[in-house]
């Protein structure tokens, strides 16, 4: 059982309380109608898929119910750090 540190609860909590939310720090277009098809496709579908450190969203669904961000290693499944939604990714984090 992996323990994930929730930045809102400020506790290590069991993995089963969490759900995965995809890649983090995807900026939503301010004016979607102004995007061409390629840009819209990129926003909707194109995601990084690194072997290693990955910035991603998680939700403490069965806890405080909040979305937050994490840097996780996709090879080892180790969580390097978690931080609140809206906060900057730590230096050197994969984007």
């Amino acid at each position, binding site marked *: *059982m992996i323990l994930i540190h929730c930045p*809102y*609860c*400020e*506790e290590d*909590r*069991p993995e*089963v*309380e969490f759900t995965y939310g995809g890649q983090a720090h995807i900026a939503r277009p301010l004016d979607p109608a102004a995007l061409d098809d390629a840009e819209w496709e990129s926003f909707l579908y194109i995601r990084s898929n690194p072997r290693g450190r990955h910035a991603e969203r998680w939700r403490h669904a*069965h*806890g*405080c*119910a*909040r979305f937050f961000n994490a840097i996780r290693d996709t090879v080892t499944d180790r969580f390097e750090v978690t931080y609140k939604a809206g906060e900057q990714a730590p230096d050197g984090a994969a984007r």
Partner: protein
Amino acid sequence: MLEIAPLAVAGIDLATGTAAVNGMVSGLPVCIAPAAPLTRWSLRARDAGALSAAIGRALPDRIGVVIDGIARLGPDEWYALLPEGTVLPGGAGLPVSVVEVTARAVGFTVEGAGAVAALARGCPLDLAGFAPGRATRTVFETVEVQIWATAPETYHVEVWRSFAPWLWHSLAAGLALTAGLD
């Protein structure tokens, strides 16, 4: 043909009249019982001060802590377990949400020296450090529950009404099963 075990459907009326069950888990006594009737309120607000003023009660600052029957579940979410019939002011005109949800959930008490072991059968939370006065949402097996530590070796488990029969039978089966193994 798929057969549904009687246990899976028979507990639908368990909110009233279900007798307490005594048993052993890991050699320690446990008693599970339906909780006394309570009134439940879901409280939401970005500004805790506005919510506190609206309902005229103190709110816990820390997530996972209870003050006077109100638990902080998340950054903008509180949950109140109050004596039956308690009415909170609605906070009309204020940026808060104060909603009675009494009928949404059912409460069980899990009590005794084996209470932690009984809950740990299905809940991965570290209950050893979960002192009285704490409460949190978590899971039991695959069912979302709230666990409130109300007194030493005494826990109140809140579960949505439709999941309650399953949870009750799972807890009761755990007592019986482990009693046979001890």
